[in-house]
């Protein structure tokens, strides 16, 4: 079993609560995505603001967030391993800082992939049963996966970078990674509402840019953050 696979297993064992929260959030996203198919529209008393068309976009955001919640324990494990000297020992065995960062990123992305694939399959199946249009289901599936993965990638890299750079083990910089990682989600959520005709293109573009930024950031921190920053 390779380093990232063990890291993934350890993360699952260390913080099960996050996995439960991730699954609950997924179910919530799936319900939100399909709720308008269940509740019949009341044409006699129309709502002052009709949000029903926006529910699929909202559910994409929630399902992506569930992927993030599901993979958060990996970064917490990174901090824990840094503080108890595991990373120091790994460095001494010949690994470089980039090898270590990559290991945690792989673990994080794999965990998120498991949940997002489950979410996409489940959501598509329910939507199909309820008669949701296939093009909408396909769009939601692609967007959920791509936005979810890009967001998890960016958050993981940012959190590792900030926790490596903070001077004291108890510093508060680590959550900054989550904040920065979630920022790309706002335009991915708002712009499609403003330009519904380009919703998929806009979100795909944001996701691809986020993935590229995350990748460049990963390579950069592997070079710019010195090995000593991983010491306890």
């Amino acid at each position: 079993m390779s380093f990232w696979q063990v890291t993934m297993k350890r993360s699952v064992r260390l913080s099960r609560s996050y996995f439960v929260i991730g699954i609950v959030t997924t179910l919530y996203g799936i319900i939100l995505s399909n709720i308008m198919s269940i509740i019949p529209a009341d044409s006699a008393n129309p709502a002052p603001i009709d949000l029903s068309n926006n529910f699929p976009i909202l559910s994409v955001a929630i399902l992506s967030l569930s992927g993030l919640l599901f993979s958060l324990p990996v970064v917490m494990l990174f901090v824990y391993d840094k503080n108890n000297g595991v990373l120091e020992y790994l460095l001494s065995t010949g690994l470089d800082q980039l090898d270590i960062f990559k290991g945690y990123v792989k673990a994080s992305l794999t965990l998120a992939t498991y949940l997002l694939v489950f979410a996409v399959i489940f959501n598509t199946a329910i939507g199909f049963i309820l008669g949701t249009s296939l093009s909408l289901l396909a769009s939601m599936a692609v967007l959920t996966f791509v936005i979810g993965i890009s967001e998890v990638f960016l958050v993981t890299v940012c959190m590792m970078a900030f926790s490596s750079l903070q001077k004291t083990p108890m510093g508060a910089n680590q959550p900054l990674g989550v904040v920065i990682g979630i920022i790309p989600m706002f335009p991915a959520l708002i712009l499609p509402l403003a330009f519904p005709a380009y919703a998929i293109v806009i979100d795909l573009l944001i996701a691809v840019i986020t993935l590229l930024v995350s990748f460049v950031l990963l390579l950069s921190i592997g070079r710019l953050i010195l090995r000593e920053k991983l010491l306890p």
Partner: protein
Amino acid sequence: MQKLELHELSAGYGSEEVIHRISLELTEPSIYVVLGPNGAGKTTLFRTISGILKPFSGQAKFDDMDLFSSKEARRRIAYLSHLNALPEEMTVYNALKYYADVEGGDVDHVLKLLNLIELRDKKFSSLSQGQKKRVSVGKIFLRERDLYLLDEPTSNVDPKISKEIRELLIRLSKDKFVLYSSHNLYEAREIGTYLIVIKNGELKFFDKIENVKTKQYRVGIKTLNGISRLLPESKFENGYYVVTVDGPSEVAKIVGNLVRLGAEIVEIRELDNPLQEFFEEG
């Protein structure tokens, strides 16, 4: 021939230089005890040799390979920090397996070597400090290396485990380089062949331990009968007649005389460790 070379090595953290222009050449497999007060730079030295810290200047080489840039050179080094550095949530077997998966190695061999078989399925976090240390030491024996860096491997362990670790290192040092930092001066004298003293980040002494000369040599003599009359220059302290002499040879003469004059000697004890001087200020 294998050798560890440190050439004008300076290193530290951020912009703070902790060790300054250390030059050393270790050519013989043996135990090299690294001594120095807290904050002297021992851990920084070990971290630099193990390739974790980038030198500010100078070079650390093992077998002519740069220890910071060569992964191959780093793989030939084992570094045991003063932390246990093991995943606490795992069992002993799985914690060692975790590293074996990363760098290769034989977990069962380590369990046997350090008598850890009984602890195999226990959670690492549930072990006593001494047991944790043993497991922690175990990880550096997962596979064979040529240079072992051990930062206070016997701190917080009971005398029995401490002895086991020392014996293991003595066996190891027959054909491997072992650099061993300790605050225990008696332990240092017991197992070390060479002494490296670091103070304020600078190399203060490097030679065989047997060549360490002490400024004063105090010996305590315990007897069944009073000997203050036979040894008027002595002071009676804590049950011992204490005399200050120039060296061990003088003790032999004094003891010979005392026995001839009827002293019933039950114990002779060296009261000062010559290595103590390296911890003193100045």
